[in-house]
């Protein structure tokens, strides 16, 4: 046995030696049983590696990917808007725990209430700190002011993402705890109602920044809730 040639057997096997080295290694192999055995076994390792069969993932990974790639903001600043605006990595991976979902439900009630307030009182002013605390909480959810672009009701990408997530949730509904399903569906109804009311109010006042912010926030919450729900069903 020669440690020198044993250490070169992979190179020999892979055709990485020079002609002179091949000749020398061949001569050594002709005399050395151990190195011939090692070479044979190395070839078996390579054969096993190349024959390693592919397997499919055990879980559906698409909902998690969809959740990350569609979490783009609806309200953007024109100066930074591009044809294909995508979120920065730090803006992804939004997830809620069930207690957070419960809190979200409370906040959505506030959102709905405040949108209703505006929808029925056209001359109403923005909420002030003197208003009930829950409305102040809802107000804190609005996105930063500035050059707010009216939310696009016909945003095909948002609608497609929601439709995809709803389909996934529907398909995996049976795998979720019924109580979780109940909470999710109740929250979705609240969000849908908030969206419906915001849209109705915006029909009459399309440029209203406050209403646009509320609509954007409600839509974002719907997407987040669906993402979380589909991720729960994938757990």
């Amino acid at each position, binding site marked *: 046995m020669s440690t020198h040639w044993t250490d070169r057997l992979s190179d020999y096997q892979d055709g*990485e030696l020079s002609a002179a080295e091949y000749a020398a290694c061949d001569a050594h192999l002709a005399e050395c049983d151990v190195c011939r055995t090692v070479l044979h076994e190395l070839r078996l390792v390579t054969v*096993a590696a190349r024959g390693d069969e592919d397997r499919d993932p055990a879980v559906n990974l698409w909902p998690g990917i969809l959740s990350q790639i569609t979490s783009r903001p609806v309200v953007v600043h024109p100066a930074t808007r591009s044809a294909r605006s995508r979120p920065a990595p730090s803006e992804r991976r939004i997830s809620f725990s069930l207690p957070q979902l419960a809190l979200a439900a409370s906040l959505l009630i506030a959102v709905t209430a405040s949108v209703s307030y505006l929808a029925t009182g056209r001359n109403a002013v923005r909420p002030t700190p003197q208003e009930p605390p829950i409305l102040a909480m809802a107000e804190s959810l609005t996105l930063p002011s500035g050059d707010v672009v009216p939310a696009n009701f016909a945003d095909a990408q948002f609608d497609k993402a929601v439709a995809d997530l709803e389909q996934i949730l529907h398909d995996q509904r049976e795998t979720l705890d019924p109580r979780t399903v109940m909470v999710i569906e109740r929250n979705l109804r609240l969000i849908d109602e908030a969206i419906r009311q915001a849209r109705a109010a915006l029909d009459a006042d399309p440029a209203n920044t406050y209403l646009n912010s509320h609509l954007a926030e409600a839509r974002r919450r719907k997407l987040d809730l669906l993402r979380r729900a589909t991720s729960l069903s994938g757990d």
Partner: protein
Amino acid sequence: MPVDDVALAAQGDTGAFERVYHAHLRRVHNLARRMAGSESADELTQDVFVRVWQKLSTFRGESSFGTWLHRLAVNVIVERFRTLGTMRDRFLADGETVLERLPESRAPARYDARMDLDTAMKRLPPGARAVFVLHDIEGYRHEEIGEILGVSIGTSKSQLHRARMTLRSHLNERRDSREHALD
């Protein structure tokens, strides 16, 4: 997969991107599983496809889309190792002694070629494992591996040999244990 799906996905069409995902999922997931282990494969696969989505606009068609995506996947996985500090620091040292005792003399072994490669590869340090997977399974050349991992061609070659020797040692143990069980 229709080529148009890549173009549509690059324009933000998530439906087209889902088709791209399904077309390449298996290869990416298996690459992640082999390089990082089953426990990390799902998360890495998701990270790869999110990165693909972000980088689609940079695909110029200079190579096939599959080749481009695969190289991106390798980079994402290697980046993860680097982030965790588990790649370059865990190559086997060049001066390290041979990993296992060589047999004194023995007839060529009759191995089961369908060995559990997952189990065997768990014995490898991440760096050596990456070289083995990229070279022996994915078909990369040492020059490419050196570039991807940031090591010399010589290091790539020596790590490949040591990885194979470690796997061979694992096979010997498995065979010996099977023979003892039959005694």
